[in-house]
């Protein structure tokens, strides 16, 4: 391995070779193949340049706020130091990770364990289910511009959550996963790995929270849906308002699998979310949903890719943004239909509700279609609250702030309504409501 002197600080920032070696020391007990992959990932991270303005994948992004400097490696925190809020719904179990370490957990019922469901940490799974982890953990390429940050995530990934549901097992209740970042300038690398074997069913609620500090959160999730399986993944990103956040999703849907991923973006100062869905076999379906409430000077940068690799697959993307104050959103989506993926049905829609004269919404909905027997449409709209709706509410004596909130809820309901679990539905609504109280 080369010496640290060869790596200029600007390209690695706080994530120096020394920091990486220190991290490796801490996870030295993990399997050799994983450590080898982490080393390779660090080399990629250290050699790739920072994104530049002319990079198409970073079009419209405010790069001045994307930095690797000034962050500290995460120190251990105790569960009692967190202001933890539970899942709030009846769940099958939960894990709480703070600064990349397990601090609390509620195991699954004996019945589920007996049926072969595994729920715990990635470190545990590396030890006990190494082959499964190896096959699915960060196994998909980064294709949406954040190769450097994805490599950083892999290099510094400490611990995360792991759930495996074996063939034919259907879990009725959701599992809760909580990722916390605590302490000034803490860098965290949360990860959630969901593997649903053939005909399995699982619902995962993934929470991202922190104290008020300025954090660096660089997380990822892998959702693998085997033949005929059903995966529902709901993420609620509520980092502090000073956090720089990256989140990378990779979804793989096999024959007749149905995946629904729903991301609520609320926190962070600058948050980038990359979502990559691959529909690999006939009958696969991916539902990609997102809700963003942007206020203050928040910037939410969402990049998506739906690849239809087999015939008779479908996908539906609906990203809704509500913009207040001086906030900014970017939606850049691409549907790719491979040459043999006939009978594809793909939809992509970005709706922006602009509630302030200083907010800015950017939309880049793209299509690359190489098969002719397909139904592909996309749409993007940006508009204000319709004057008639506002007038109607005002004429009923509702004050402007509440009217705004009601209209935003009405705007979001189309997305929230797709969550089958009504209790989780209410949880989402509560986070959005809180944002309006700020």
């Amino acid at each position, binding site marked *: 391995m080369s010496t640290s002197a060869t790596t200029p600080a600007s390209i690695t920032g706080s994530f120096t070779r020394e920091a990486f070696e220190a991290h490796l020391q801490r996870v030295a007990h993990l399997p050799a193949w994983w450590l080898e992959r982490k080393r390779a990932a660090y080399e990629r991270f250290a050699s790739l340049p920072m994104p530049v303005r*002319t*990079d*198409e994948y970073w*079009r*419209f992004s405010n790069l001045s706020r994307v930095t690797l400097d000034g962050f500290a490696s995460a120190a251990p925190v105790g569960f009692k130091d967190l202001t933890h809020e539970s899942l709030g719904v009846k769940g099958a179990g939960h894990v709480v990770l703070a600064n990349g370490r397990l601090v609390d957990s509620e195991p699954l019922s004996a019945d589920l364990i007996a049926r072969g469901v595994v729920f715990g940490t990635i470190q545990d799974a590396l030890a006990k289910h190494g082959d499964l982890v190896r096959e699915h953990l960060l196994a998909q390429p980064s294709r949406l511009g954040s190769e450097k940050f994805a490599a950083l995530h892999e290099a510094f990934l400490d611990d995360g959550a792991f759930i495996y549901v074996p063939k034919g097992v259907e879990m009725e209740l959701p599992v809760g996963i909580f990722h916390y970042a605590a302490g000034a300038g803490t860098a965290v690398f949360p990860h959630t790995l969901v593997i649903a074997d053939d005909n399995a069913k699982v619902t995962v609620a993934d929470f991202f929270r922190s104290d008020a500090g300025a954090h660096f959160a660089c997380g990822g999730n892998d959702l693998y849906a085997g033949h005929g399986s059903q995966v529902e993944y709901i993420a609620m990103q509520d980092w502090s308002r000073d956090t720089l956040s990256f989140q990378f999703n990779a979804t793989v849907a096999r024959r007749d699998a149905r995946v629904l991923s729903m991301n609520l973006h609320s926190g962070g100062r600058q948050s980038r979310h990359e979502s990559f869905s691959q529909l690999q076999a006939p009958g696969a379906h991916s539902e990609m949903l997102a809700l963003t409430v942007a206020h203050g000077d928040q910037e939410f940068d969402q990049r998506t890719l739906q690849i239809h690799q087999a015939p008779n697959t479908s996908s539906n993307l609906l990203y809704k943004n509500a913009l207040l104050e001086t906030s900014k959103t970017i939606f850049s989506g691409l549907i790719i239909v491979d*040459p043999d993926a*006939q009978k594809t049905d793909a939809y992509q829609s970005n709706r*922006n509700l*602009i*509630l*302030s*004269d*200083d*907010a*800015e*919404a*950017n*939309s*880049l*909905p*793209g*299509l*690359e*279609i*190489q*098969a*002719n*027997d*397909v*139904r*592909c*449409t*996309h*749409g*993007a*709209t*940006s*508009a*204000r*609250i319709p004057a008639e709706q506002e007038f109607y509410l005002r004429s009923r004596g509702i004050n402007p702030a509440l009217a705004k909130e009601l209209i935003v809820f009405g705007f979001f309901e189309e997305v929230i309504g797709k969550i089958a679990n009504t209790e989780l539905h209410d949880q989402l609504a509560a986070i959005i409501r809180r944002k309006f109280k700020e």
Partner: protein
Amino acid sequence: MNPLSDNDTTIADEAAANPVAGIDQEVGNFQYDVKYDFDAGSGLSEDTVNFISQVKKEPEWIREFRLKALKVFESKPLPTHWATKDLENIDFNKIRYYLSQGQRSKRSWDDVPDDIKKTFERLGIPEQERKFLAGVEAQFDSEAAYSNIKEAVSKQGVIFMSSTEALMEHPEIFRKWFGKVIPTGDNKFSALNSAVFSGGSFIYIPPGVKVSHPLQAYFRINAENFGQFERTLIIADEGAEVTYMEGCTAPKFSTATLHSAVVELVAMKGAKIQYITVQNWSANVFNLVTKRGLAHEDATIKWIDCNIGSRLTMKYPGVVLKGERARGEVLSIALANDGQHQDTGAKMIHAANNTTSNIIAKSISVGQGRSTYRGLVHIPKHLKGCKSNTECDALLINTNSRTDTYPAITVKGDRNSIQHEASVSKISEDMIFYMQQRGLSEAEAMSLAVNGFVNDLVREFPMEYSVELKRLIDLEMEGSVG
């Protein structure tokens, strides 16, 4: 494939064997002996630019403008970080940048391949025009057909001349806007055009004048019309109205592989400009064009753009909506056949309150053809009442046809509204089946369906154009089914 009902079965047979027959297959075979008296040679350097300027007897400021542009061109990289890598196949050193008037090739009608003659016949192009289009006549003698229009137009005070001529004779009108709507440094190819431009039309319409007939490039007797590096500037003064047509539906043959035009439109308060292009270059041509209009208060600029030919076309007509209530429109049709890439789109920059824009783009990909829509709609801060609408529809004919859509939309503030919609589809089997039951051949049914797809746009074209356009689509569709 079922035989066509058309009398000319030879063409049908040819077409069956080859989907692009009758259009552009023999293009590369145009060989003729030519002596260029004023030949800038191939390759591009300061000498080339100086040479062009000297031949055209241009004043010093134009020469400097050209030289400066050359530097910009050289300093800019190819835009391959977003555009197709096919651009790298352009060998700038092998291109002839200037052939002066009178030194053009002479070929006889007998040299023109039969299939091209047949194409002209099927499109119903008058004899006189055919010779011009085939390059048999260096210039099209328009006097007979159009002299009364020309006369009428000049009586109204309309200025209509070539670029260099206009810059020298009417600098007070043209210099003010020349290179202002599209600055030299806008992109690599606008810089190239600024360095070596020749030909094209400079038009000025005085206040309140409504030009009743569409102006066409080949009204004017000037062999440089269809040059490689056309430069067009149209200024419609307050309340004036004009329609300009560029190109024609008949295939245009060219041995030059790079065409890079710059077209600037300026619509003063309340003026209306409609600019119609039908591009049908032969399939070896890179057609890299920059077109933009500047619309002042209450002005309307409408681009009607139809791309059928060329190997690669990159063209995104734009409108800068500078004055309140200005309106910009782009209506475009692209047809990409085997080996072709139509990379077209539109740009709308809203820069004043209550401005509106409308983009309707339809593309058809046949065989392995690829059509791309790239769009940009920008509504910056603190504007109100702006509206923008974009619709892109793509039709894929064969299983291996390809289409891409890459729009970019930015809206700031809560007092504007924008929508964008795109769809991709194929021709439904039911529709084809139904028409076949009614006695149409599969090819006829296909043509009818494709014509139906573009019909609402074609209607916007002047009548003569839409008739020719429909025939042309029929021709291109032949052999794409069965």
